[in-house]
């Protein structure tokens, strides 16, 4: 029997299926579509017993600039009881703890590689006023399961510029969950470029614990074949003056499936929150699928919160106009699609990185 803690708001916890004894089988430990938060991303169905990576640690590689340290520490999972977290705790071994001292500034990023299969637990702590670029590359192996948990702590005035590039194979199953605790005046800038996998869920959960937290959480997904990509986020604001901008855009071709779930939870003290959530998607085929669930839960009375969601096709009139000027159909489609998606990276300050992401995007469209 599955049991849930009745006082827990299970929708707000990733993969939360309650706490089980050790006797449960693997399929019972993974989130299923019966769980509201996973209804479009059924991990249990995609992960077979004995799948590569299910009971090993991921061969994580972390490259850091001078002044940043990485140590291995014992996992502390007291605060999290999700089943995927429990699996990671069981198999990932010690947590990689990345420590960025107060006031740190470097032109070199921290890079995380090696999330190819298996479980990983990583924590990243930015000291007061530290600025850091974090680049994560999700390059999963064929037929492998990857389950990573990243815990980020942003001290006051810390700024994290995070870039995620997912280039998994079409048979990789990936769940990457990030928890960000943001203290006063800290900022998260996050830009994700995702190409999906057999199943993938990239989830970001931010807790705004101090005043004037800023976050930009943008992403683009480009899916073909039977690929699946789920971008889920949960922004929980407990203090005033937060500024949140979220824009996720996607295109789906063939029989692929895109999922967007976004939630802003604005608690009573979080007055003067200014938050906007957008999800815009284009279906390039009528056999592809897009599921979207934007949510606002607001308890403060003096806030500006908005969400918008559009799903459509490429503009036929614009396509004809471009073809009339001599641009072949495939090229016209690629140009329009690129123009549609590229805007999510306008907020990426690192121009070299932005160009590199756009190159990957163009590569997919070509």
């Amino acid at each position: 029997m599955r049991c849930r803690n009745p006082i827990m708001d299970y929708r707000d916890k990733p993969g939360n299926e309650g706490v089980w004894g050790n006797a449960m089988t693997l399929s019972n430990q993974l989130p299923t579509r019966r769980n509201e938060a996973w209804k479009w991303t059924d991990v249990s169905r995609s992960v077979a017993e004995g799948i590569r990576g299910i009971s090993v640690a991921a061969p994580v590689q972390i490259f850091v600039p001078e002044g940043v340290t990485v140590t291995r520490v014992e996992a502390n999972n007291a605060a999290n009881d999700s089943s995927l977290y429990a699996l990671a705790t069981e198999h990932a071994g010690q947590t990689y703890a990345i420590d960025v001292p107060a006031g740190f500034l470097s032109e070199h990023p921290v890079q995380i590689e090696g999330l190819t299969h298996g479980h990983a637990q990583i924590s990243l702590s930015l000291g007061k006023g530290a600025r850091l670029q974090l680049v994560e590359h999700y390059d999963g192996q064929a037929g492998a399961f990857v389950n990573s948990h990243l815990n980020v702590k942003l001290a006051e005035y810390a700024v994290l510029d995070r870039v995620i590039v997912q280039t998994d194979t079409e048979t990789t199953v990936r769940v990457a969950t990030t928890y960000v605790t943001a203290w006063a005046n800290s900022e998260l800038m996050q830009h994700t470029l995702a190409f999906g996998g057999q199943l993938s869920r990239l989830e970001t959960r931010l807790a705004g614990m101090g005043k004037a937290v800023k976050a930009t959480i943008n992403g683009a997904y480009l899916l073909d074949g039977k690929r699946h990509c789920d971008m889920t986020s949960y922004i929980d604001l407990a203090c005033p003056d937060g500024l949140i901008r979220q824009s996720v855009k996607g295109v789906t071709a063939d029989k692929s499936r895109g999922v967007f779930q976004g939630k802003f939870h604005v608690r009573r003290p979080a007055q003067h929150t200014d938050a906007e959530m957008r999800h815009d998607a284009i279906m390039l085929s009528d056999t592809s699928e897009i599921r979207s669930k934007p949510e606002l839960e607001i308890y403060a009375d003096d806030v500006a919160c908005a969400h918008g969601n559009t799903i459509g096709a490429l503009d036929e009139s614009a396509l004809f106009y471009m073809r009339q000027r001599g641009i072949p159909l495939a090229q016209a489609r690629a140009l329009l699609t690129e123009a549609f998606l590229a805007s999510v990276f306008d907020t990426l300050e690192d121009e070299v990185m932005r160009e590199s992401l756009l190159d990957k995007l163009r590569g997919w469209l070509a």
Partner: protein
Amino acid sequence: MLKINNLHVSVDDGQKPILTGLSLDVPKGEVHAIMGPNGAGKSTLSYVLTGRDGYEVIDGTVTLDGEDLLDMEPEERAAAGVFLSFQYPLEIPGVPTMTFLKTALNAQRKARGEEEMKAPEFLKKSRALAAELKMKPEMLKRPLNVGFSGGEKKRMEIFQMMMLEPNFIVMDETDSGLDVDALRIVADGVNKLRSPDRGMLIITHYQRLLDYIVPDRVHVLAKGGIAASGDADFAKRLEKEGYDAYAA
């Protein structure tokens, strides 16, 4: 040059006939005007010539220099030299005007087996043309037609036309939305493109544009075909007398 023979075109999945036996011959070097009442099928003609979806050719032929146009994709027709100046030019968000035009120009050249135009030559040519058409240089940097006024969009059509140097030009209600000064600039541009090797079809509801671009022949499109034809003075008579005599 352009030969249209007994053209029948329907819309709404072939349910609604628009053109019912239109024949027209525009020889090389000539400018022909198509006038006619609203709803006569003037825009339909422009879209059929350029291959837009949704216009079903039931019967008839259209050839350009002997080549079957109806058999070609829109981009192939463009590469063969057919250019349509749109009545309502589209906005293309996110695609800078220069990127769009350079892509179009080089796609056409590639399709014709010609060498691509290099960036410096393209820039030089476009800057000179923009100045000639009195366009603000920043217009070329903005996404194509986004936030442009109606007049600016029409000017941008002429700019594209002069950059692409097509063989056969179809202008669909180019004068709408233009004030007198802009109309003169646009007409100067069009007149510059008049040449013994080029044909033009000017679709217009009003005679005004034809004061600036004087046509060789004027045709009335009504009841699905060419109802009457004449010389440039015929357009002036039409303006005075209206289309009632030709309407259904």
